[in-house]
């Protein structure tokens, strides 16, 4: 229940930002986001994990619509991306949770720590990405995307080495 509410809250915060962004299509974007939120709630109630990516996609699409007419790179996109990930992770946790399985307390602590680490890393990467995009805006999105991919791949390699 806590994880489900956290997921809804994270997605709700993203939608609130979309609605408050003041773009030409901000209301349409917020509407798409609200639809995504409804889909997420439906998925949580009916325990359908396949609704999670669709709800995230709808909120992301809403954000794209809300950015219509803005030429400056939005610094808050880093936080929105992390909120979307947080919403997806908490929703997955909520749907996966089975009250019949008695989990050790250490498992919950480990999962919170893992989620916290993932969120922190994602936030860091996003800030670095947007800073790089702001500095080298002329280089284009392709370069930014390649940069992201490289950063993510580097993190993955480090994690793999640590795990081994």
């Amino acid at each position: 229940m806590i994880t489900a509410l956290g997921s809804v809250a994270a997605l709700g915060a993203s939608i609130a930002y979309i609605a408050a962004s003041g773009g030409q299509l901000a209301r349409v974007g917020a509407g798409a986001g609200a639809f995504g939120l409804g889909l997420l709630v439906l998925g949580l109630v009916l325990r359908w994990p396949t609704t999670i990516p669709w709800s995230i996609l709808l909120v992301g699409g809403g954000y794209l619509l809300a950015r219509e007419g803005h030429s400056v790179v939005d610094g808050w996109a880093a936080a929105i991306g992390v909120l979307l990930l947080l919403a997806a992770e908490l929703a997955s946790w909520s749907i996966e949770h089975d009250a019949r399985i008695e989990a050790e307390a250490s498992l919950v602590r480990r999962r919170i720590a893992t989620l916290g680490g993932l969120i922190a890393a994602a936030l860091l990467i996003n800030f670095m990405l947007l800073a790089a995009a702001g500095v080298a805006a002329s280089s284009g999105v392709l370069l930014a995307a390649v940069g992201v991919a490289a950063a993510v791949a580097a993190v993955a390699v480090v994690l793999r080495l640590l795990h081994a």
Partner: protein
Amino acid sequence: MTRWATPKLAGYAGLSAAGLLAALVFARPELVALTAPFLLALAAGLALATPPQLRVHVELDQARALEDDEVGARIVVESTTPVDRLDLYLRLPEGIEVRDGKNPVALHLKAGERRELELQLGANRWGGHVLGPTYARARDPLGLLVWETVAPERPELRVYPREDVLRRVLQPRETQVFSGNEVSRHKGEGIEFADIRPWFAGDPLKRVNWRASARRGELWVNESHPERNTDVILFVDSFAEARSGNEGTLDLAVRATATLANAYVGRRDRVGLIAFGGILRWLVPGMGTVQLYRIVDALLDTQIVLSYYWKEIDVIPRRTLPPNAMVIALSPLLDGRSVGALLDLRARGYDLTVIDVSPVPFTPRPAAGLDSVAYDIWTLRRDALRHRLQSAGVAVAEWRDDTPLQAVLEEVREFRRYARHAHV
């Protein structure tokens, strides 16, 4: 181990691909920022995912138990690789429950760690129960991949029915030729005084009744009843049962059969078993503790199997039904085939007793309407059926769960005494 991807993996991969593509199409770096966390989760999850090397097995403290006993079980799990989350589940058959311990359980294993999970299982119902399978499901730290395996061992727990204590059992009309505890109606070598008769050549001197001989002026000897054993066939009707919750007529019949078998084997009688139902089982009469174990083991496999095949008593092997054997049938009298077989046994001259394991307590009477009328008709027809059996010379007693078996046996005994007097 079977590996499969969770919906989360496909979802995150799809979101990452869609986000990066949209970022390129719309030339918006913000979309890359929205996508990057999912890409990171995907990469980190796959990087951290290690196929687990698990060994799971299940042990039982004992392979045999009595009903309502507790049996210790142990799930041992070892892993040579770290497992972030391992879900373990020992599937339990009907009649076995967890009284203490965690099942299913989720735990974390370090590399090379061995864990033993103790469970206290309650044996609620008699029968041969096969525990398991034991499922183990491991996940990577971010829940993108799942590995599943099943423990190869499936230990068997044989739960024997709890027996009542009987002060005395039914005495058969006829005895057999071997020594036992039953005083025979015939005359011969024994302890129990029967009669006196004139002396004949060959009679031992110790049997001369000197007082009677002095009174009559010639030698008279004592005659006695020999102590013989009997043949008892326990007939369990497994064509149909009435069940409500965890209790049913078959449970009562099996418990009573085990109780009777124990009592008769203790008297040095030969005891046999016929489970007459969808699956026919029989055990040729025998004596001793080994036979008792055979009977109880055979009872554990008794179950209701739906069958439309019309069976008569002819299907039972001849050796299973020796002449002069006493047949004690435990039946809910729900199936016409078993009723027909019982009447057939009586017609063939067997000393038959029917303990009607009543299905009435397991079928509550409907409150009103046609159903309640049908219920009343059904109970009346049961009464008529019992009367029909009694008319054929069969001792019948209705047994309900709240009545001790001894009381039912006493009712049967009274009927048999009455019936014998009536025939005289």
